[in-house]
């Protein structure tokens, strides 16, 4: 249903062009959950915003195709995009505390996208239902239903609450209800559990799983937590410095990681064991994307399998086994020749 090809999103800055998303390819089938994993600043969120064509200026999508249900979103008019946003593709944001508008009631915010997309619009004769009482009643009922579905207790009472009267977990549930309001086909979940504590995290992920099962909603889950992705997703794509470095079915990637970065991420997940072991962190930091127009692998300075050729050639994505892709010099046959 979604096919992203060679997506490039750039930000012009004083220090040169920052390639926030640099040639990302992935695809998603109906009812599938794909995890987009990577450190902060690796371009995961920007990939999501690029799909919705909501990259904040001066940033812009520079290249690539986003085919959603057979339509290239890159060619869609602003009006068409507005019809798709919220209705076909909905997004759940990272920080529920700041994402809900503080001056409107929760219930009204859930109702809003139904109203925008005319979910219950009546073809009434003009003036018969001037104040849209019927439509409002239907929207209200659906909002209550949604609040029940996402697990907000006493929805009739909480409908009239303001965001500050909700706890963090409840706010995130409300955000999910907003995203589900028009039964979207695709849900972009941008670190939906990062701002929450662990027990609430599990509940929210459980809720998303339920939504995926019941409505067959496809989900792209953006996370920096490989453990969360491992448990939740069908496929995983690991991003580093704006590029996907490894992509494949979840069990293959977790059990047999190929890219040194994926290996590093897996090794840095703390395990609860009797013996106290030091967590293996990947040395160094995500590179500054502004200075990153050199050829070669962006991970070379943090990689323990680095060879001199890593910096010299442009490394292509290689399909090592059906459905398994890696972008690493050790898995490419054409690496040497690609430099020309």
């Amino acid at each position, binding site marked *: 249903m979604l096919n992203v090809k060679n997506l490039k999103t750039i930000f012009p800055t004083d220090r040169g062009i920052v390639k926030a998303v640099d040639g990302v390819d992935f695809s998603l089938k109906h009812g599938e959950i794909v995890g987009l994993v990577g450190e902060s600043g690796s371009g995961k969120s920007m990939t999501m915003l690029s799909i919705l064509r909501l990259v904040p200026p001066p940033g812009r999508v520079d290249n690539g195709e986003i085919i959603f249900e057979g339509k290239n979103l890159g060619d869609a008019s602003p009006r068409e995009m507005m019809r798709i946003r919220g209705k076909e593709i909905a997004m759940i*944001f990272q*920080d529920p505390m700041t994402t809900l*508008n503080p001056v409107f009631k929760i219930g009204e915010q859930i109702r809003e996208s139904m109203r925008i997309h005319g979910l219950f619009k009546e073809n009434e004769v003009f003036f018969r239902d001037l104040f849209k009482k019927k439509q409002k009643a239907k929207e209200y009922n659906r909002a209550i239903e949604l609040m029940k579905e996402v697990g907000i207790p006493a929805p009739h009472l909480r409908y009239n609450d303001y965001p500050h009267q909700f706890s963090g977990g409840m706010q995130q549930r409300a955000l999910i209800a907003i995203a589900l309001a028009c039964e979207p086909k695709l849900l972009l979940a941008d670190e939906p559990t990062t701002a929450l504590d662990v027990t609430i995290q599990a509940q929210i992920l459980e809720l998303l799983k339920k939504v995926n099962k019941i409505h067959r909603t496809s989900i792209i889950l953006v996370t920096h937590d490989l453990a969360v992705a491992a448990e939740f997703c069908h496929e995983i794509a690991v991003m580093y410095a704006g590029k996907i470095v490894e992509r494949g079915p979840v069990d293959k990637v977790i059990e047999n990681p190929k890219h040194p970065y994926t290996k590093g991420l897996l090794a840095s997940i703390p395990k609860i064991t009797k013996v106290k072991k030091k967590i293996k962190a990947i040395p160094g930091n995500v590179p500054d994307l502004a200075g990153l127009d050199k050829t070669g692998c962006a991970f070379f300075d943090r990689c323990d399998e680095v060879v001199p050729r890593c910096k010299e050639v442009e490394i292509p994505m290689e399909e090592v086994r059906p459905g398994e892709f890696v972008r690493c010099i050790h898995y490419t046959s054409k690496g040497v020749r690609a430099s020309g």
Partner: protein
Amino acid sequence: MKGIKILERLIATIPVVLGIAIIVFLFMRLTPGDPVDIMMGKAGMVTEAEIEALQREFNLNEPLHVQLFLFFKGLLAGDLGNSMARGVPVTKLIKDTLPATIELAGGALIFALIIALPIGIISAVKQNSYIDKAAMAVSFVGISMPAFWLGIVLIILFSVNLNLLPSQSRLSHMINLQHITGFYIIDSILTGNMPALINALKHLFLPSITLGASMAAIIARVMRSSMLEVLKQDYVMLARAKGLSKWMVVIKHCIKNAMMPTITVVGMQVGVLLGGNMIVESVFGWPGLGRLVVDAIFNRDYPLVQGVVMFYAIIFVLANFTVDVIYTYINPKIEL
């Protein structure tokens, strides 16, 4: 619940007003110049006995604390004393001139808001565009322009050269209007007097612009900066992701959030409106409180100055109280 809290806050303003009353009373008496001297100066030859009689009439021979006590005693009875220069009760003078001043301040406020809010919003949404730069340049001029200068320029342009609008008083002489409330706009609507309404609006035009110009400039700048802040918020992105257009997001989600700082400034500007109208009322021959108090200050007319300044203080306190109440309606997080 909210009603009770509003009442509580209203009662809490009483000590503020009393404090202001004492300060006004004392400062007026600290200013050099004796009211009796000034009154007598106009009359020419006077005897000691006449001076004493006058002093007794206005209790000026009493010690300060007794005068203060008498002032408060009158205040509680709603009596601000008689004007020394005019011999009329101060309350009557205020009552007669107040509608003119409120009409002018209202005109200025409406002008300022109509001009400033759209400019501030558009400037923020189109940040760094030519529209934004031009609007901010104009608003800078607006802030730095003194009202008396702007008033005179407008009179020269619109009244003298183009002969489009009147420049003096509230109504032309040949227009008859039955006075009910003292607000000429309201009176002419109540009596269905169309010519008077148009005439009164024409008279109100230039003074309102003069008084409202600097306020408009300030509000536009505040609105722009708070709007810029709001546009960066996450909920703006959520609203876009719901499928709202850019401008609908601004109108539905941003303005209400961006209004908070603007309303604060408007509340404070009410004081500026009242202070500034002394100049504007003088330039446009507007028979309001401002002109009354300027005359009273020159005459050392203690009761009248006290009365009017008290009145200003009460309006200022009430304006800021109103702002506090409006906050609670705009932002549910804020409680009284």
